């Protein structure tokens, strides 16, 4: 009897330990802690009033991780909106810049001379003049702004001289060298024509309702604004080449945008997530023009041929087949969409097959990242969620205004499993999140997440890095290609597996990730071979590199 009791006790302890591990952590995955306040990132987001009477108050902002002072630490830039009252008087400061001092972030907005006000939306970063310092472009409801990094810790607003002032309601933006001439060009996604003088507020238009309650009007019913492509002239100015380059946007409501080489031909293509409209994929014809192939490539619509409400997007080779796949966030009641790249500019909607279907339905997705958060060599998916209608809380329909994050672990077999609850209690705190950016702000080799919360303070989710897996990172520096090497493709071979990634500007929901390339290596301690295809098409073969370090590669 006693022996039996001891046996039962032993089994109980084992079960208890097993249960404890199951409830608190996903095996082999890192946990995340919101350290924004502790790290000093505390700027309150201003973006319309609490009741969201107009659509312009609801779409929120993006953020960027980038190293503005070349000290090796990625800094954080947060875009700010405004309110209709403030905007009549010029708006609110467009951005807040936090310098990463290693163990804390310091607000250096004023010291950096970032005084421009307006109604900011999103951001993308690039060293557009190849002077070695990263500049950034801020989209807005109203005038956009290009800030030149003066190299001394300050920025100058060069929007007018650079000729990129777009006064339409812009949202996403991305830099990319579409003509491979060595400097980055700029794509700006525009949303809709909006004026509080012509659009009725919530409650004053019988047609603007969601599940029976009055909500703000739009975007359906508003006139969409076409996107714009600006070619870099190489002398600090840009030329609007939208029409000449064949960028035919049928006035869709544009949000997220990226430049990526989807057909592996060495030329950057452009993908745009559109709200309530088909998404657009512009194939680079290698002669300075593009052909829109969204529908024929299978990336415009859902699997059943429906236009969804594209918000944010991210790209990455989630299945390791050597092609960049696309993940798009969508509205609540609908799935996000994973477009698996089959090669030859053909994609298959693999959302449901990948396990990303039913589970996402209650959430309204915005920021998104395909990134290897546990360094096991497979790209996971992070999604920042939040509803647009505060009024949804008054309905008993299973949707909330403040929503949790989603984190999907890549199981390495084409499928994902949602594990947010297992890896972070902070992911489960309801927020009306919008843009998000991924980067290794503490240079410890695992990827952290900055998330913007509408009318709230930001979240900075530190990756606690318990996975013990190995990794390697690359910072690319172009010489003949653009200095940030935006568009460069890095391919590594490690442990018998190949992985690819590209340096990218913009992405997620109107945000910008750390431009360093990051690969998880699992248990492998070395990348055996590294190959870089630079944006100008030249390739560079490099030997092996030991794991767990950042490597600078110059062209």
């Amino acid at each position, binding site marked *: 009897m006693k022996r039996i009791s001891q046996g039962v006790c032993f089994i109980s302890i084992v079960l208890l330990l097993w249960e404890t591990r199951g409830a608190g952590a996903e095996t082999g995955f890192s946990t995340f802690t919101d350290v924004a306040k502790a790290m000093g990132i505390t700027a309150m987001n201003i973006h319309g009033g609490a009741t969201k009477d107009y659509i312009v108050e609801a779409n929120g902002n993006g953020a960027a991780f980038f190293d503005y002072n070349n000290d090796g630490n990625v800094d954080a830039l947060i875009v700010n909106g405004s309110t209709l009252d403030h905007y009549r008087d010029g708006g609110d400061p467009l951005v807040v810049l936090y310098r990463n001092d290693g163990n804390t972030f310091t607000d250096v907005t004023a010291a950096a001379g970032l005084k421009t006000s307006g109604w900011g939306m999103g951001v993308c970063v690039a060293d557009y003049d190849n002077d070695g310092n990263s500049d950034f472009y801020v989209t807005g409801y109203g005038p956009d702004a290009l800030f030149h990094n003066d190299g001394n810790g300050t920025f100058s607003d060069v929007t007018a001289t650079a000729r990129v002032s777009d006064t339409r309601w812009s949202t996403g933006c991305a830099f990319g060298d579409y003509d491979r001439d060595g400097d980055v060009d700029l794509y700006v996604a525009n949303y809709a024509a909006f004026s509080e003088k012509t659009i009725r507020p919530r409650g004053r238009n*019988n047609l603007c*309702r969601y599940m029976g309650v009055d909500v703000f009007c739009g975007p359906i019913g508003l006139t969409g604004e076409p996107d714009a492509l600006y070619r870099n002239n190489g002398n600090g100015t840009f030329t609007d080449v939208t029409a000449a380059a064949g960028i035919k946007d049928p006035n869709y409501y544009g949000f997220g945008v990226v430049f990526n080489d989807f057909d592996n031909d060495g030329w950057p293509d452009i993908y745009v997530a559109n709200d309530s409209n088909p998404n657009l994929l512009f194939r680079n014809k290698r002669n300075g023009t593009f052909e829109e192939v969204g529908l*024929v490539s299978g990336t415009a619509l859902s699997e*059943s041929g429906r236009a969804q409400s594209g918000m944010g997007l991210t790209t990455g080779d989630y299945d390791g087949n050597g092609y960049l796949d696309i993940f798009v966030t969508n509205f609540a009641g609908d799935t996000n969409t994973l477009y698996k790249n089959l090669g030859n500019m053909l994609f298959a909607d693999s959302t449901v097959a990948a396990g990303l279907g039913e589970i996402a339905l209650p959430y309204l997705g915005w920021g998104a990242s395909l990134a290897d958060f546990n360094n096991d060599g497979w790209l996971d998916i992070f999604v920042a969620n939040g509803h647009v209608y505060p009024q949804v809380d008054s309905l008993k*329909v*299973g949707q909330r205004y403040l929503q949790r994050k989603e984190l999907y672990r890549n199981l390495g077999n084409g499928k994902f499993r949602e594990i947010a609850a297992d890896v972070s209690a902070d992911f489960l705190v309801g927020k009306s999140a919008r843009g998000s950016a991924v980067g290794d702000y503490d240079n410890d080799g695992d990827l952290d997440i900055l998330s913007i919360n509408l009318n709230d303070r930001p979240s900075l989710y530190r990756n606690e890095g318990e996975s013990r897996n190995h990794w390697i990172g690359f910072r690319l520096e172009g010489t003949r290609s653009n200095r940030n090497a935006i568009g460069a493709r890095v391919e590594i071979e490690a442990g018998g597996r190949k992985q690819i990634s590209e340096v990218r500007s913009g992405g997620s929901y109107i945000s910008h990730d750390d431009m360093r390339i990051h690969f998880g290596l699992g248990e492998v301690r070395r990348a055996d071979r590294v190959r870089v295809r630079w944006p100008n098409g030249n390739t560079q073969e490099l030997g092996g590199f030991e794991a767990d370090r950042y490597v600078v590669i110059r062209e």
Partner: protein
Amino acid sequence: MNDGAGKFHHRATVLFLVLLVVLFTSSIALAAFQSPLTAALDQLNRGNVFEAIRSLKLALPENPQANFYLSGIYTRMGRYDTAYRYLSSAIQANPTQAAYYDQLGLIRQYEGCRPEALAAFRQALTLGMKNEEATVWRHIGDVHVNLLEWDKAVDAFRNTLRLRGDDAGAHLALGRIYLDRNDPAAALVELHAASAITPPISGLYAAMGRAYRASGNPESAIDVLTKAIARDPSDQESRYVLAQTLLAEGRAREGREALRDYQQLQERMTQTNSMFEAGVERARAGDLAEAEKVLREILKVAPRYAPALQILGTVLLNRGNVQPALEAFRQSLSVNPLNSETYLNMGAAYLRLGNLNTALEMTEKALVIEDEDARLYNQLGEIYSRMSRPDQSRAALARAVVLQSAPGYQPPDPYGSEGRHRDDAATVRQICGGASLP
């Protein structure tokens, strides 16, 4: 693009109403009906919805059940405020009639008030739906799908099938849920069950194609989707899924061809819609010549697009071309015989021609469908006046004044597809009730 859409809608309405009659008669003994109601139901069973509305309204004072049928008709017409008005009267007369609450649930669901819809359906079950309990469970399942409560939806659809194994709608709904849950094998079982029931329901073959593709059987997917498109060339969902399947199978040329077909049809629809909007805008702006030109262009592409025919008739009438206007209205009515705006305008056209009897007949027909539009009474007053019937003229004009004086009245848009004011927000607030909004 909408060729025959109105007719389809009309046929669907008739089918629905026949079902409604069956449903109701299973709950209430036919023997209790008075003859005017019986006559009205006879009209419904024969598919003459317009005459059924007229008869039901005539039967109303003595037969409060007629409110229920009128509610069903107006629900199918998308006129939820009117449908709710009639249903309220029916419930007031007999608050324990289960079928009324099923109807209430449908109205609330269409208005987007899902929790309230569920409450109404449950009330129907509590009161006892007898042979139609299966239908109510399917309605409940539909609401749970909209609420993203898939487990509850599955339970509800299962209840439907337990009570009525040949409910194609429930099989299809279950198939779609299993498909979205990445269980294509279970989905195929349900979808095959749905396909064995005739007539085939919309969306079935596209779902089946997706299920075959997801289960690793692309050849069967291609086969079923190809047949679906051959059967119904307007099945765009099947065409898109077919294209995606072909592309994924490396049959790039065929896939791109299917996508091209899809794209061309989509563009045609988009173009027709935007041209229609442009035509309406031009008409509203008073540029009638341009409006006529645009609307005639639309009708070249979609000759039986009832809204375009209706607006074209109105434009022609306002340009003084009475006979061509009447022809457009006649064509519009042949597709959609339940548009009060068309009858109103035909009445105006005949009035202009001095054909007072036909003008009166048409205006009265408009009143059969829509009895709260002040414009109809104004027109009626004018007709009576010209017919030297001053008392009737005064009564009609007085009724118009009453309607125009009602709180919240807004003059209808003559270039709206129905040209009829609907205060949907107020209706929804009244129906959804309760929740305090920020």
